[in-house]
């Protein structure tokens, strides 16, 4: 047990919260799932499937925030295009789910998805091949964002595009992809994207049990990725990454090829975003080019900023809080939401540069000296 705690909390100061956080996250997940599956619908503690799906969506966003934080909070690379990796992962999953429909589409065509029949396509484009195998689609969900991140990162980091330039380039990247996926000729369903999914691995997507399972898998994967990321970032690799963030040229002068570190971290982050996207799609039931829109990518950054960048827990909490607020706000005052979101951007950057976690750390720091004084007295 001590070894376990040790493993979780290796090294860094934020590490000591890892185990409790994971325990809370998984417990909550289990409780919510059980409340949905085993309690009667009229029980006061019943958690509706709607809520489960909503929570599942939040957790996907949390995973995405984790990805953004790894690259921004720890390495100082502000990516305004993480939505692209998320969406690509989502499309891979969407393509698999689309193939699962088989001949149950409206045209009953066993070979082609509906939108292709609709646009009079004769055969499946090459990039759809293999997508009817779950393992292959999932491989693509991580490989495609990974490769894109690798190529982009390799080009950008090697030629030392940094700071705001890089941010703008990532934004251009996701914008270019947005335009591309809008095109119907691309073979991804154009503006409508992919939808009307029926089942995943043979399980009915509309069944409560499937939804709960997806939710639980999301929570579990989030926990795993969280712990693994925490480990990676507290290894010497993580120290190098921090060193790059704070003084990149210094790191180079002591012999680290910083571009390689950045590329691999970028790829890792993109892969996490891809996984988040792949989990997102079966839960919300649609993937379309809107996910590539630059605004979405910027919104992700604000989740991390609100929660506190440079702390993985902060990113997760930020994503969940902001999205919960969004759900509530847009229901009560749809017009006020954009004001609130805008103000959040300004206020957090001005007054809370370290986010809620920074605030929490400050509060703890204040309380501690007070305590020690008390004990001395």
């Amino acid at each position: 047990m001590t070894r376990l705690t040790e493993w979780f909390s290796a090294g860094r100061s934020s590490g000591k919260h890892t185990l409790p956080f994971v325990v809370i996250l998984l417990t909550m997940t289990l409780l919510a799932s059980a409340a949905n599956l085993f309690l009667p619908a009229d029980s006061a503690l019943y958690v509706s499937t709607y809520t489960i799906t909503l929570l599942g969506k939040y957790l996907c966003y949390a995973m995405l925030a984790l990805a953004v934080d790894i690259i921004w909070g720890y390495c100082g690379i502000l990516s305004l295009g993480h939505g692209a990796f998320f969406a690509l992962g989502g499309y891979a999953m969407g393509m698999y789910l689309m193939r699962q429909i088989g001949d149950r589409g409206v045209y009953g065509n066993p070979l082609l998805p509906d939108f292709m029949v609709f646009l009079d396509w004769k055969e499946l484009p090459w990039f759809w091949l293999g997508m009817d195998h779950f393992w292959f689609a999932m491989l693509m969900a991580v490989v495609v964002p990974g490769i894109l991140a690798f190529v982009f990162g390799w080009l950008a980091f090697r030629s030392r595009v940094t700071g705001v330039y890089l941010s703008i380039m990532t934004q251009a990247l996701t914008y270019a992809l947005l335009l591309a996926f809008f095109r119907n000729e691309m073979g991804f369903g154009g503006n409508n994207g992919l939808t009307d999914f029926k089942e995943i691995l043979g399980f009915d997507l509309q069944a409560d049990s499937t939804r709960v399972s997806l939710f639980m898998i999301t929570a579990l994967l989030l926990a795993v990725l969280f712990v693994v990321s925490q480990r990676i970032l507290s290894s010497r690799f993580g120290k190098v990454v921090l060193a790059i963030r704070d003084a990149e040229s210094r790191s180079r002068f002591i012999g680290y090829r910083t571009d390689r570190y950045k590329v691999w971290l970028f790829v890792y982050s993109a892969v996490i975003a891809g996984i988040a996207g792949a989990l997102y799609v079966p839960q919300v039931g649609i993937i379309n080019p809107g996910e590539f829109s630059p605004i979405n990518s910027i919104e992700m950054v604000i989740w991390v900023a609100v929660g506190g960048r440079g702390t993985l827990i902060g990113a997760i909490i930020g994503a969940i809080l902001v999205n919960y607020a969004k759900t509530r706000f847009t229901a009560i005052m749809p017009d006020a939401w954009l004001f609130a979101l805008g103000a959040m951007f300004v206020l957090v950057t001005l007054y809370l540069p370290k986010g809620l976690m920074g605030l929490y750390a400050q509060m703890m720091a204040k309380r501690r000296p007070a305590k020690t004084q008390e004990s001395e007295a």
Partner: protein
Amino acid sequence: MRHLIALCCCLFGLLSFSVYAAESSPQDSLLTELVGAKLKNMTPILEKLANTQGEAILPLFRILLGGDLYYIKADKSLVGQFDEQGNTVYKDVFSQVVVPNLSKKDVKKIRVNNTLRGYLRNAIAQIQLTAKSPELRQSAVRELLSKLDKDTINLIEALYPNEANKKVKEAMGLALSMYAATSIDLVPSNRLVAIERLSTSLEGDVRNTLTKLMKDENPAIVKAASEALENIAQRANRFAFIDQLFFGLSLGSVLLLASIGLAITFGVMGVINMAHGEMIMLGAYTTYVVQLIMPNYIDYSIWVAIPAAFLVSGLMGVLIERLVIRHLHGRPLETLLATFGISLILQQLVRTIFSPLNRQVSTPSWMSGSWEINPVLSLTLNRLYILAFALLVFIALVIILKKTSLGLNVRAVSQNRSMAKAMGVKTNWVDAMTFGLGSGIAGIAGVALSQLTNVGPNLGQAYIIDSFMVVVFGGVGNLLGTLVAAFSLGIATKFLEPTTGAVLAAIIVLVFIILFIQKRPKGLFPQKGRAAE
């Protein structure tokens, strides 16, 4: 034949008509018929009117063509609606005398549709063949080119020898040649001469005539026609190239306007202003408000809107700088996020104040239409003006930065802040002014863009990514780079578009820039030296 009669009337009875029209009794019955008629039955009535009235009916036709013909409900008499200094007035169609005390409720519109408009234009053209102004005569001949019948040709033939104006005569000659070339009963040699003459014209109707001749039975005619077509196509292609170049320059000027303010705030100050697009939007809305305040002087509104937009956006810029950006100095990524928040707030603000609907910004009359150089090449005036305007703004900005003390201070601060501060430059003041200047110029860009696109809350969003691309591509901190980048991207897009389509062209240009920046991270014209690090 009836047209001929009508025109003979015009020719020989010009003087008598004014008297005749003033008396205005015989056509009254026809005019009353017009009031009650259904759209389908109106053409014959108009034909009768044209035949009996000749040129005297022109005012009525013109008003009807413009959709401004009304009748007074009480007595069914016809009036035209005119706009005099913002007031709607109704005048008698023929005498141009204002009919007093009429309001919108007392009159009802006489509707027209496309069929009628087509007829009217043709009829007006026929009548106008004898108009006093040579321009009118020329446009009348050109209008008639597409519908040459025996009557028209006879008329033109009759007018041709006495025509004094060279251009009109040329156009008439063209009409006659077109007719000659297609007349099968003519001797082939005459037809060949006619075709020869046609080959020098770029008129679309000429091309269509020649294309029809390709099916002629006489092989010599077919050969001549195909040669003429070839000739025309070659010349037309040259002009098409110029046309495309102009499209590119025009797009480039829009990009230049949108990005030039950013070139200052981003390039000189190093501030990433994601709310830049909203500064453009504010400028566009200022134009809207200015037009709202002075609805009767739309033609002059632009001149008021330009300084107003500069002030509004500039002040907003100063405000943003003082309240937010100042506190984030040296933290470009944070500035990016904060200004993005500001852009959301500004968008929503505009949505709350002006509604999410697009607003109407009218185009001043001097900016509408196009400058027709020849039948295949015409440059639209609004884009021409905007191109000139963009260059003007650019030059003004260069002068401000190079020649004024503000410019000197700005350059000093951008090169070495602490040194400038030590030298007594009020860096705070310079920052605010620079940001205000950049924002103000974005506001001016908004005035220009309001003439081209929708004025709505999302206006700025549409340009922000493009403007960043232009500035980064041109090289940050280099105004000339921005100019070159804007025009080269504009032209590249427009030359790609015909083969790839608009979307793919945009994607190709974006990907090109992304790759280019990897190769040359500092853009086309990088700043060199240690200061740039």
